[in-house]
């Protein structure tokens, strides 16, 4: 029971300051709403503080350390390489601080009131916000729930924050682990496992299914499997942690595979087996909201829940858990609240994985296209035949375009290789614009650039390849 509570009011209350919530706040304020944003932890959410940004900062440093080995044979040689983990971590933190400070400045500039504390619904138009020192109520016309997600824990291997950790701690290790075991071969496990391997750790990745990156096209994943092998990362698929026991300096894991079991000793265990939406402990039932079977909040294309004045965006809603999905939904929700006709109505959401090499994908795979009733034609172009890739010494990978055979309508773009994150945008725009193979093939692509591979892949699909030999059609 809290005494002397103060009650604020706002047109729009936003709960959660991640890439969903803070973008919604900026847009709502731009549209003239009075906005209160409640954040219990750090502005910027998972993405800016312990997700997208710090992981990519760590990966950049790790890449640099690794590049050093590769370039010796090309004439850039050094006698010794040493890593200063304190400086690496300071760089990661600076990057985070610069961006989160930027977001705070934007929120101030838009007169968004930011309140620190944990929000919980008391009713459909009222929340209580509790922080360490105080508590207050906020009354609102409309609200946007943008509380994001948290790492899923494994029953037999609970997080202890030191030896058995989530991505949050694995981004901030103050020393390079001796042996890091990554439980879960999804994108977060691969990104962080690769980074720490490049910084010197022995790394083992355990994946319960038969393949790394389940759900991704096998052919796209192959260059990553090759690179992991070259790096000396041990990958164990069909592997399950049976028992785990922590000693003073180690965790001892018993891992079973098809063919038997094995004991692994690790000084750090990173568990990345998915994320769960933060929809518990929010008092959603007081607000009248019911969750779907996965704990997500069902929304319509204007991001409204069943309770018309309550909206939800980002990781708490069904669909891919991606920052750019959260932000785009944030814009839609803010505009819908302000009375604009906006809707979440996109042809495709790209996804990027910052492994080595990177993978990016947007739209349909050939199989998905088939199951949607298309007769897909596939054009592939290897980066080994791309001049820019050669000059960068990044020839492992390929560009793949998927189109409808009859109309040439582009359906999907997939890239494994250098700078996937940068080249995928052309694919997303092509899908949104309803471009065809001819459109892509007839668009002049600068030479020598990686994106030429999209154009060449389109020419392969059109059966008029230039830089690869024509193959008998299937």
């Amino acid at each position, binding site marked *: 029971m809290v005494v002397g509570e103060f009650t604020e009011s706002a047109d729009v209350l936003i709960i959660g300051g991640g890439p969903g919530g803070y973008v919604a706040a900026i847009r709502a304020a731009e549209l003239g709403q009075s906005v209160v944003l409640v954040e219990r932890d750090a502005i910027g959410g998972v993405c800016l503080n312990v997700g997208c940004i710090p992981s990519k900062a760590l990966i950049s440093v790790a890449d640099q350390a690794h590049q050093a080995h590769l370039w010796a044979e090309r004439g850039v040689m050094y006698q010794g390489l040493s890593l200063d983990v304190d400086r690496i971590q300071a760089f990661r933190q600076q990057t985070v601080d610069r961006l989160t400070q930027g977001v705070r400045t934007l929120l101030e500039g838009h007169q968004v009131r930011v309140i620190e504390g944990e929000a919980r619904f008391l009713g459909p138009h009222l929340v209580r916000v509790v922080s360490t020192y105080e508590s207050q109520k906020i009354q609102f016309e409309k609200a946007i729930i943008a509380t994001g997600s948290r790492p899923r824990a494994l029953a037999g291997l609970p997080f202890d924050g030191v030896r058995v950790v989530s991505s949050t701690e694995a981004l901030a290790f103050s020393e390079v682990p001796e042996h890091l075991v990554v439980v879960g071969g999804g994108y977060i496990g691969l990104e962080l496992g690769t980074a720490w391997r490049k910084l010197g750790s022995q790394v083992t990745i355990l994946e319960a299914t038969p393949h790394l990156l389940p759900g991704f096209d096998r052919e796209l994943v192959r260059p990553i499997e090759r690179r992991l092998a070259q790096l000396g990362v041990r990958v164990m698929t069909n592997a399950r942690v049976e028992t785990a026991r922590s000693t003073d300096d180690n965790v001892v894991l018993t891992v079973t595979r098809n063919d038997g079991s094995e004991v692994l000793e690790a000084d750090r265990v990173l568990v990345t087996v998915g994320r769960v939406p933060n929809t518990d402990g929010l008092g959603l039932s007081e607000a009248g909201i019911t969750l779907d079977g996965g704990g997500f909040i069902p929304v319509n294309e204007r991001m409204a829940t069943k309770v018309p004045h309550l909206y939800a965006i980002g990781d708490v809603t069904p669909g891919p858990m991606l920052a750019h999905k959260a932000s785009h939904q944030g814009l839609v929700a803010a505009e819908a609240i302000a009375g604009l006709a906006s809707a979440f109505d996109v042809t495709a959401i790209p996804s990027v994985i910052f492994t080595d090499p990177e993978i990016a994908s947007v739209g349909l795979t050939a199989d998905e296209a088939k199951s949607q009733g298309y007769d897909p034609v596939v054009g592939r172009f290897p980066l080994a035949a791309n001049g820019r890739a050669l000059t960068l010494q990044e020839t492992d990978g390929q560009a793949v375009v998927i189109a409808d055979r009859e109309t*040439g309508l582009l359906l999907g773009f997939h890239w494994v290789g250098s700078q996937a994150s940068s080249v995928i945008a052309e694919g997303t725009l092509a899908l949104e*614009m309803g*471009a*065809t193979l*001819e*459109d892509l*093939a*007839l*668009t002049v692509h600068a030479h020598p650039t990686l994106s030429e591979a999209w154009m060449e892949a389109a020419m392969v699909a059109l059966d008029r390849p230039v830089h690869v030999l024509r193959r008998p059609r299937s």
Partner: protein
Amino acid sequence: RPHSSSATGRRALATPAVRKLARDLGVDIQGIRGSGPNGRVMAEDVRQAATARTPAAPPAA
């Protein structure tokens, strides 16, 4: 429209595939009034222009 292609002699607004279609069908795309947004010439506009221009062609079937 001050910015339509005919008024200023600017290029017709059409995608590469539609411009190719016009060439393949032997239609001058600059002369077509586009039905798409911003006066954009669509594939259908080109096909119509091609049919309209060849009334002498015997009707199919």
